[in-house]
């Protein structure tokens, strides 16, 4: 270092504060970059969430001021027989649909991972149910599930298996739940399949070669190579799926609106009806927020799993 080269540096440092330089500082700039997403999250997620909690603690009719009532809305829900039906419905819907999506999605991903003609086209088509707007595809399902127009009933009747008009898919409480689970599975399967397919493709072929040399058959290769390596992906995709399914609204709202006689009401549809149709924001918020603890547990489990040191 020579004196002349130091001089400009010193003179530069003279103007004690330069906005540009201040921005250049790692600490400042990184915070500035983080600020918009944080503000975004606070405004669009944080604020509604805490406002929701605040609402749930009030007797708050639509277009009127609220009165603080503590946990009265939660206690009210506790004593509401429909609420408990909604709890059972939501858990059944989520558990069965997620399981079906997991098994089906894994199967599809394994098939798609093979080499065959029109592989890419098939993969693209696979995504269709996921791409079509839910409300639109649900309208198509409305026709499929109407016994008078149903292609399923037509096939069953034409093949002589049952008498016309065949099962009432949405009129029977058990079939209605089963039908909704099938539609949800149909819509969610591509998400699973594509994500798992991506996971499958990261598994090195050498591992399979090594396993084959060691004498592993197809099932053993799947059991001891594919499954363990795919586990992290399966885990995460399942968590996401559980969250989405748990809070599902559109599909049920369009197909049955919670009917027949609440047999398919879930948290989101019941809370919406109470808050928006019934004009009881406090009660609606309380019902909606009871979704949070189970979902929080699931997210917590996910976080713990993801942070666990990989061995």
């Amino acid at each position, binding site marked *: 270092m020579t004196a002349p080269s130091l001089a400009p540096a010193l003179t530069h440092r003279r103007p004690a504060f330069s906005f540009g330089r201040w921005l250049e500082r790692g600490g400042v700039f990184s915070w500035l970059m983080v600020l918009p997403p944080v503000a975004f999250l606070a405004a669009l997620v944080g604020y509604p969430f805490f406002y929701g909690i605040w609402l749930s603690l009030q007797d708050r009719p639509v*277009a009127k001021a609220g009165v603080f009532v503590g946990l009265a809305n939660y206690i009210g829900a506790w004593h509401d027989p429909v609420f408990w039906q909604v709890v059972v419905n939501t858990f059944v819907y989520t558990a069965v649909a997620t399981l079906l999506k997991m098994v089906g999605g894994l199967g599809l991903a394994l098939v798609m991972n093979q080499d065959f003609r029109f592989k890419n086209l098939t993969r693209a088509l696979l995504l269709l149910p996921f791409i079509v707007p839910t409300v639109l595809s649900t309208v198509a399902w*409305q026709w499929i599930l109407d016994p008078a127009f149903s292609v399923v009933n037509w096939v069953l009747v034409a093949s002589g298996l049952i008498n016309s008009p065949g099962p009432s898919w949405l009129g029977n409480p058990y079939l209605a739940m089963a039908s909704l689970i099938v539609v949800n599975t149909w819509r969610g399967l591509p998400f699973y399949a594509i994500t798992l397919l991506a996971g499958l493709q990261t598994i090195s072929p050498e591992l399979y070669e090594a396993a084959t040399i060691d004498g592993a058959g197809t099932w053993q290769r799947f059991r001891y190579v594919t499954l363990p390596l795919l586990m992290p992906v399966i885990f995460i995709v399942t968590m996401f799926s559980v969250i989405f399914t748990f809070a599902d609204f559109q599909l049920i709202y369009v197909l049955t*609106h919670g009917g027949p006689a609440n047999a398919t009401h879930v948290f989101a549809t019941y809370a919406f009806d109470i808050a928006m149709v019934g004009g009881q924001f406090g009660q609606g918020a309380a019902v909606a927020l009871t979704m949070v603890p189970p979902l929080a547990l699931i997210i917590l489990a996910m976080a713990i799993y993801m942070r666990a040191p990989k061995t």
Partner: protein
Amino acid sequence: MNGRFRQSRRDVLKLTAYGAAGALLGPAVARAAPKSLTMMHESSFIPPYDAYFKNDLAKAYEKATGIKVNYEVVSVGSLLTRVTTAAENSTGADLTAIGFNWAFLFDDKFVDVTDIAAEIGKESGGWYETAQEAVVVNGKWKAIPFGNIGQLMNWRTDWFKQAGYEKFPDTWDELLEAGVKLKKAGHPFGFELGHGFGDNHGWLYPLLWSYGAREVEADGKTIVIDSDETARAVDFCRRFFKETMFEDVLGWTDVNNNKAFLSEQISCTNNAESILWAAKKDFPEMAKVIDQSENPKGPKGRFHMLNPLCHSIFTHTEDKQAAKDFLRWLMAPKQCGAWLDIAVSYYQPFLHAYDDAPFWKVEPRNLPYRDALKTSHLPGWPAPLSRAQSESVAKYVVVDMFAKACAGKSTKEVIADANTQLKQIYRAS
């Protein structure tokens, strides 16, 4: 490299700043728009009705006063959400169409229009009393009733004739009898028992009332659903369902009965005038053998569902007088009559001046919808307007009481369930 990078960072910051400024300025610019009024309306089942407002009424008003009237159409089923948003945030449309008991729900957010209601009534032959049931809150008119979208019996005259019925049965028991015969002949009935918005309440409340039963007394406090009258209505409904219908109706929403009727699967349902309207347009042959009748009588009389379309002014509107003047103008015979004409009685006016209006002669089969106005009530009747009333409807208490009985539960059980729910709902409010 470093310089360029810094440049781009600054650009990002600048853009963010402009974006934020733009977002702040946006509403300010909109607020400075020329004088205009916006009226929110649910998309009508009768498309020319919406078009007439936009193309004729709005233009005529602008020509006469210089005030531009925007007609904001919202999709079917989402009007309540939009009204809620506007009322909660005190922003948006100046006037809105409303239904059911919203005049009560949004009481604080709607302008008192008692004065113009009196003028309009005086000018057009007086108001039907039933209209007031939905809009008068604490002695003040909070909306101007426009028309009722009645829910009546829609039936196939040809099939009823084959079963030996020239006229529509006068009582529920006779209707049951006819239904048994028609179902045997392959023409079952189809009445919605699922979670729709209107076609379920449309016949189940009237059925309940016609047996002398009700959810709550006129005091709005005493729950009286647990009564012999309710039990008789439930027992009837179970038989009516089992002997004249099929399982699918338990899961129906409002689209299903229209679809089933127009595809000739059912011979009778409860609906607005939309089935006949659609048949005339798309199935003219079928339209010839469709008729509409008032609901049957029960042991305690004949009842119908009040399903009013009314107009309210939001208190957040800048110029309340301008909005009132517009509503007053809209309800004058020249405008109101023409608008009603376009919809050919799909909206049954609450003003006696229209009792013999020409549009009733265009389609006399719609006349029962006019006659039903006198015996129409809102869900929750005879109790006064209340929040509990909305909650009971939102929770499908009455609909599900009947639906559960039809699906196999005992009368005692379903009434006990409804009783528990109603006690909780009416106590909380």
